[in-house]
Each structure stands twice: as C-alpha cells, then as structure tokens.
C-alpha cells in the first residue's frame, strides 16, 4: 500500500483526465431519490456524495442482471462459442462497504471453479473507492465492512483540504503518477486520516448484534412462531436479494431464435426468496413456504459461509432493508433473536 496526498484544487483535474482517458463509471443522480452507477461523460454528472446507497450495487457491472454465456449454432455440426465480454473501465466513487461486497463476489466466483464471465470483467475493472456518509440503514460497521482492506486500486478519503490516497496496486500507482499531482503522505496526514476514521466510524448509528448469530441461529431454527411472525408480510418478491451486493444466485436459461438455428445460454439474477428457487422437476419443492425461504436467506447471509469459511455474506449496506416493502429488516430480526436467546 502506498499513501499519498492529493490537494483538493487538483482533484477536478485528476477526475476530468480519468473521464476523458477511460470508460468511466460513477454515481449519478437518477431521480429524486436514488443515485446509480452509470457511464459518466462529463464531470458535472458525477455526484459522489450520495445519501442513499445506489439503487443497484456495483455488482451489475461484473455480474449483470442478465448475461449471455454461450452462443451456439445448430446444423449438421454444432458450433459452440463462449461469450465473454471485457473492456477496461474505471469504477469511481464506490464506498468501502460496497468494495467489500465486491470482494465477496470475487471470492464466490473463484472458489473451486473460476467463472470467466465474471473475472474477464473484474480483471479489467479499475476500482477507485471513495468514502461517503453512511446511509440511514447502513450497519457496515457491525459487519466489519466499513473499511476496505483490499479490492481497490486507489481509495480516496476526503480530509479537510486534501484527499488521503491509499494506493493498493501498481495499476493504481501508474494512474496517479500519470494523471494526478500527488505528494507523499506526511505524519500529520496520517494523524488526520486516523482522526477521520474514528469520526467516520462514529457515524454508523445502526448496529446489528451479530456476535454468535451462527450459534443463535440453531436456537431459533425450530421456533416456528418466530419465523411465521418474521415472514408474515413477505411478498416472496426477492427484492432483498436482488439489490444485495453479495447475492449471487442465478438461473441459466437456453433460448433459441425463431429460425431454430442460433441459440444461446444466458443467466439472470435469481433469488432464494422466490418459491421456484427450490422447485425440482416432478413438483417437489425443498422450500415451499415463505418461512422456509426467509430462514434460508438469513442462514445464507449470516451462517453458511461463517461455518464454512469464516465469512459473512453480508456487508451491512442496508439495501435490503430499504428495498423491502414488507419492512422485513435483517437488523431488527437478528437483534430480536439475540434478545430471545438472552431472555
């Protein structure tokens, strides 16, 4: 890691250069409520001080909602061709919590088998992170995801009159050397940065009592009344999964064009909250009720990967809380389990 300083007066120039030199993705105001990561052509479109988490997490850049995987042509011989898209892009203005979400996806798509459709894009993505005020529903601090240790090339932290840059890769270093007027960080810069981080952490108001949840989950597992109450209003709409930066479930579909010659395999985001998720041929459903499904979601987020690899599949971004029209709230539910255990 290299630590550098970028003066505020040089910031605009740096970003403008990046916009003109690269395919540049950054947060832009989408409507009265939300920001979204979209291609930016003009600095004026860029707005990194968004109050709410972006509508779709940045995973859409690497793992799009729908993505063609394989193309084939059927004739006397069948020709099969993988469809792998990748071009160099800068992702600018992503916060620490979302970077941690992306790190989780990196890990999922590289364990056991490497998902080339994901990694071709990931390798070419230059990530420039930037802190922003945590949103109301964000509990990243409790999840240990408020700070990004890796997964980025450059990370910008705004101090009073300057940006404190953490440069994690040689690519990040190349870019700053080439496009920014930077200097080395001094002791006082580090001191200010440290103070900033303390202050930053104190801004996370929402706390989840996650300690030992993977054990508590066993405690609550068979409490049917609890799950019935918790999932009573659930629409099985999957919104909670689909907006989540760490949810990675997908369906694979085959489609043939009307000429019956050319077809493809594609994948699309799926959700474990949808009844069909657990349905197999012959009609058996492994998770037929919304109680089963909510249980599965919490288990997957907060237990499965802890048991197996010591990781949570949740970075505490709070998008699911925001998205759920049934007001099903992961923080409240986990905290209430804690209360029941200790009562």
């Amino acid at each position, binding site marked *: 890691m290299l630590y550098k300083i970028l003066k505020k007066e040089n910031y605009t120039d740096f970003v403008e250069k990046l916009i003109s030199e690269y395919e540049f993705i950054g947060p832009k105001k989408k409507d009265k409520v939300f920001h979204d990561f979209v291609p930016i052509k003009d600095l004026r479109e860029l707005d990194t001080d968004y109050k709410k988490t972006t509508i779709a997490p940045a995973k859409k850049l690497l793992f799009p909602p729908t993505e063609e*995987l*394989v193309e*084939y042509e*059927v004739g006397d*011989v*069948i020709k*099969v*061709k*993988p469809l*792998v898209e990748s071009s160099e892009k800068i992702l600018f203005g992503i916060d620490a919590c979302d970077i941690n979400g992306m790190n989780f996806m*990196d890990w*999922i798509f*590289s*364990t*056991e*088998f*490497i*998902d*080339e*459709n994901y*990694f071709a894009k*990931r*390798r070419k*993505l*230059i*990530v420039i992170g930037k802190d922003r005020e945590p949103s109301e529903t964000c509990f990243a601090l409790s999840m240990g995801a408020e700070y990004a240790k890796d*997964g980025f*090339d450059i990370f910008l932290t705004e101090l009073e009159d300057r940006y404190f840059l953490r440069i994690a*890769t*040689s*690519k990040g270093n190349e870019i700053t050397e080439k496009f920014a007027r930077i200097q080395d960080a001094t002791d006082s810069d580090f001191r200010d940065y440290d103070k900033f981080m303390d202050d930053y952490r104190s801004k996370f108001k929402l706390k989840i009592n996650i300690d030992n949840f993977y054990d508590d989950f066993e405690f609550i*597992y068979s409490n049917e009344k609890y799950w019935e109450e918790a999932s009573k209003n659930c629409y099985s709409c999957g919104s909670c999964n689909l907006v989540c930066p760490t949810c*990675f*479930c*997908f369906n*694979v*579909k*085959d489609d*043939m064009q009307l000429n*019956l010659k050319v*077809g493809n*395999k594609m*994948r699309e985001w*799926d959700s*474990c909250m949808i009844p069909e*998720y*657990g349905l*197999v*041929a*012959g009609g*058996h459903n*492994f998770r037929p009720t919304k109680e*089963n499904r909510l249980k*599965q979601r919490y288990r*997957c987020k907060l*237990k*499965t*990967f802890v*048991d*197996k690899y010591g990781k949570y599949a949740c970075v505490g971004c709070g998008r699911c809380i925001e998205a759920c029209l049934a007001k099903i709230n992961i923080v409240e539910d986990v905290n209430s389990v804690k209360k029941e255990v200790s009562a």
Partner: protein
Amino acid sequence: MVLDIKENKSKSTIYVPDIATIKKVEKLSPIEKLFTIVFDDPKKQEEFSFRPGQFVELTVFGLGEAPFSIPSSPNNKKCFQLCVRDIGNVSGALHRMDAGSKIGIRGPFGKGYFPYDKMRNQNILIVAGGLGLAPVMSLIDYILEDRKNYKELNLVYGALDPESIIFKDRVKEFEKRKDIDIHLTVDNTDASWKGNVGVVTKLIPAIECVPEETFAVVCGPPVMYKFVVKELEKKNLRPENIYLSLERRMECGVGKCNHCHIGDKLACVDGPVFSLWEIRNLKEAI
C-alpha cells in the same frame, strides 16, 4: 485490479458444453430410458473419467440443461451412460431423441463419491428407490468388478410397480448371481408379480449386518430418505457409514448458482453424496 486469478488462456469457460452423440437408446421402463453417449472429440472421450456418484450437466440445445448421474462403470472408457426419467423439458426432449442426435455435456461434476476405498473389506448395503438405482449402478458395477475386496453386498430396491423396475436385465442377472443379494419390492402389484409388496423400508430389518463393518448407501426420491435412515439407525449403523445421494435443483453444477445449497454444503461441489453425519445438522437436508 491485480488479482491472483490467472488469465484464462483456453478458449472455453465453465459454461461451455462439449458436443457428444447419443449412440444408443434403450427403453428401461415406461418413463425411463438409458442413453449411451460418446464425445465427438476422441481426445475428450479418452480424458473423461469420473467416480461413481458423480454427475454431468446435459444440454439439449435450445431447450436447456439438466444434471444426471452417471450409472455406467467408470472403468468403461469408450462411452458412458445416462438413465433419464421423462419428467420435464430437457428429459422430455431427450426421450424424443434417437441414436445419432447431438447433445452437449459438461462435467463430470460433484465430489462424487461413494467412498469405495473406505468400503473395502466391509459389508455393503445399498438401498435404492425408483430412479435412485441409476446413480448407484455405477458403484455396484465398480464393486462387482473388484468383488474380492468387498464382503457382503446387499441391494434393496423398491419400484412403483413391476413395469417401473429399471435395468430389468441387470436386476435379473443380479438375482442369479451369488455375489450380490438383491431384495426387490414394488408398491403396487399386478398378477405376474410373485415377490415382495410394499415400501423398501419394510425389507431392511430382515437384512443381517454387523453394524461396525457395514456401509450403507441410500439413493431415491426425497421422501424416502427420512424413513430409510430411521431403519438403518435401528440397525446401529454409524452415521459416518451411511451415505446418501441428495437431489437439489441445479443450474450451473459448479457451485456458482447456489440453488443446491443445503446448510453450508453445496450438493454440486460438496456432494451430491454426503454421509449422514455430515448432513445431520444441516437441517432441511432430508
């Protein structure tokens, strides 16, 4: 972003199937057929090796993909077989196909594996229901080909009715052989049937086995497991020695799509065969 992940030099991805040809189609029952399959690329055919219990993802182009266990013996390098029940899109399309048709194959996937190494010099009790005989066929063949290294081999097999018995010729062959004891039962009988009637669990108590020296393998429809496990536990078999092949919905077969999650396990990469001990605390598993 510099990642540890190596650049992919091959022209393929995990989602690209290899083209194969159906060489032979045999009808096993009113709804099950046995397909003999050979890869078009001879090199791929040669390299294709699998363990009993593993499965492949089969593509019918334009229709979709579905997982099927391989019932043929791993020792057969010239071709492999799939036993498929006509139940949905892909399986239905397969049933309409004749010898010569082209399909796509990815795999083999899954850890497998029936622990045939650990099973050496042990008694083996296989409980199969319906189509569940297909995945264990590979194991049976494997053991029969190496018979001297195993002790008692019992196969309990239950089918819906006499017509639904799959691998009828093999079952007849087993009945004649001395080195495998087969216990057959059907749920619904017809006039021709002289054997047992009822669910498989009924036959288990009568089978004698030494608990510490017996491995059990169970494969069948989801509803069967709970009851069979109960019977096996009554026989004091160790949970570590009871193996179950679990079915879940699968979209990718390579641990990405997450549909086959059971607790902290994925049926595709960690299974689909698990010991009872492994899954006892996974909840929802059986």
